[in-house]
């Protein structure tokens, strides 16, 4: 599918240099086109759009309190439907606003079969408040509230969402914009609740040089830390780059050592992560083959 030339993110956002969340949003919006309303809870994207009276986004953006993006979107889509408008509603929420404070509203909206697309862009911490630990922060990662590294696993958001049986669920990564674009397009062609979880490397939070965002995203996929897949009406398809990673993963250490946040991670934690990556890949590969 051709990626349109139209830009919906204009120049002069206030994103950090090398921010992959805004890169992801650029492709999301290209896939959405102009007839959408974006609902944004408190997150980096609330800041990235700029300061009143200016906005760098060229679609309607409804900013809403932290816990309530999916609920706000529920009302909005109902309102559009009532007016017989075809405008689509897309939530673009960070990991904190999704796996932590926003999970109740999101779960409720999925359970009600709300016809919307919920996108979680995951930079694995509270980014716009200065990188505090979130439920999405991975094991071993240092944040400003886990200075010695996080001792707990990353919350498995995708399996939580999967339990709601949405017609479409996908993972994506900002380093694979074409894949992301196609997934957003596909999601918007389906009725009901859709969910896309984007891994979005973040230079200041993950502590790596700004020009490495794409490289790190690719390493996340190649090492199997992040698996690209889709679930359409429950049927799993693992996408190309992750298929390759399952057959021959690149070493986890390549991914880990590029990021300052894993400096304090212990060898034991890293080996636990390796085991979990394997287990996760196996589970998905077997499911795709129809073995379990």
């Amino acid at each position, binding site marked *: 599918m051709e990626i349109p030339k139209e830009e919906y993110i204009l120049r002069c956002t206030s994103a950090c240099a090398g921010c992959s969340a805004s890169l992801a949003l650029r492709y999301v919006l290209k896939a959405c086109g102009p*007839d959408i309303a974006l609902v944004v809870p408190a997150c980096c994207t609330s800041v990235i759009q*700029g300061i*009143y009276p200016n906005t760098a986004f060229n679609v309607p*953006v409804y900013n809403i309190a932290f816990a309530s993006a999916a609920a706000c979107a*529920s009302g*909005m889509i109902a309102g559009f439907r009532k007016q017989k408008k075809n405008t689509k509603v897309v939530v673009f929420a960070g990991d904190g606003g999704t796996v932590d404070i926003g999970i109740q*509203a999101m779960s409720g909206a999925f359970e009600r079969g709300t016809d919307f697309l919920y996108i979680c862009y995951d930079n694995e911490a509270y980014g716009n408040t200065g990188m505090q630990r979130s439920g999405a922060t991975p094991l071993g990662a240092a944040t400003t509230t886990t200075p010695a590294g996080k001792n707990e696993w990353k919350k498995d958001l995708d399996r939580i969402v999967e339990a709601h049986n949405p017609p479409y669920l996908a993972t994506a990564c900002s380093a694979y914009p074409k894949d992301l674009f196609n997934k957003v397009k596909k999601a918007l062609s389906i009725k009901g609740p859709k969910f896309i979880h984007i891994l979005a490397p973040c230079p200041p939070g993950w502590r790596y040089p700004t020009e490495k965002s794409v490289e790190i995203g690719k390493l996340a996929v190649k090492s199997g830390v992040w698996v690209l897949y889709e679930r359409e009406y429950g049927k799993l398809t693992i996408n190309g780059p992750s298929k390759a990673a399952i057959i021959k993963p690149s070493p986890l250490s390549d991914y880990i050592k590029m990021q300052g946040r894993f400096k304090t991670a212990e060898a034991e934690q890293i080996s636990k992560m390796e085991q979990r990556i394997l287990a996760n890949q196996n589970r998905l590969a077997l499911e795709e083959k129809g073995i379990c």
Partner: protein
Amino acid sequence: MLTGSTGNKAVAEAVSQAEPGVIAAYPITPQTEIVEQIATYVAEGKIGCEYIMVESEHSAMAACIGASVSGVRTFTATSSHGLLYMHEMLNWAAGARLPIVMANVNRAPGPGWNIWAEHTDSLQERDTGWLQVYVSTVQEAYDTTLMAFRIAEHADVLLPVMINLDGFLLSHIFQSLETVHIEDYIPPFSLPHMIDTKAPLGYGTLTGPETHFKFRWAIERSMRAARPVIDDAQIEFKKRFGREYGKVDEYLCDDADVIVISLGTLGKEAEVAVDLLRSEGIKAGSLRVRWLRPFPSLNISGKELVVIDRDYSFGFGGILANEIKAKYKTDVFSVIAGIGGQEVTFGDIASFVRDRRLGTEYWFGVKANV
């Protein structure tokens, strides 16, 4: 056409006539009858709205916000803990200038679990930028709900309105009700800042110290502008449907020496107390505050005041009493009565008046005020 109803069903009936585009609600005692009745109306096709049965009150208000800005009339109903759980979103609704209408069935906040009438729930939401009105009869609940949509959606107002009715004492009381044909009493919904994908806007973006106060001031300007809009809605209501309402409801206040001031059903009880006191030769009157926000002007100069609060601000006092003291620089006898549904009869109110001690506070039913 209904001829009798509970307070809750009267609200639901008025809502069905106002025809919101989206209703989002979560059940809580004693509001449940409103959401059940609306569900029945939706199932029967009496209301053609989208009805979202959300998973919490926080989400109920968030859904109303999303629906309202999409360009449709919205309604929700709640009570007590539900209202308090919405608190963040109440601020959002007013700040976003969305004319959402909500019925709050007044109930005590816990702990302990108490489902009975108290005004501390809505009074804790006093400063959120919502217009607040307190009703005292089933008819008034119905009439005021109709007015609320007209007032909230008025171009000079564009602020949300909360209709408060006492839990059980009004929500579940059956009284006569005369419904009306509203025709164009509530004009079609229009919101100047509704979402238009052809002219995209950023809503609620970052505002710095050089702009934020301007938006806050705009809320206050509209609160003030709401006063004549409320007057107009009430005058027009009388013209069309015959029933008269003011910002306050006065009973025998003109020649009174002492006036009982209260909110909600206590005001009706106070009228019976006034009759009793007058039969004893005490020139009493009752003033029931209907619109609490914007705060009305009260005709109370030269009168002794007994203010009954079914609410409290800990470490300070009865909330209504203190609002009156602050606004009118006057002493009152502040009575705290009716908390958590505590029974307050006209006889009790008459004795508050007889035993009044201006400048003091009295907790009804508490032995020593120490």
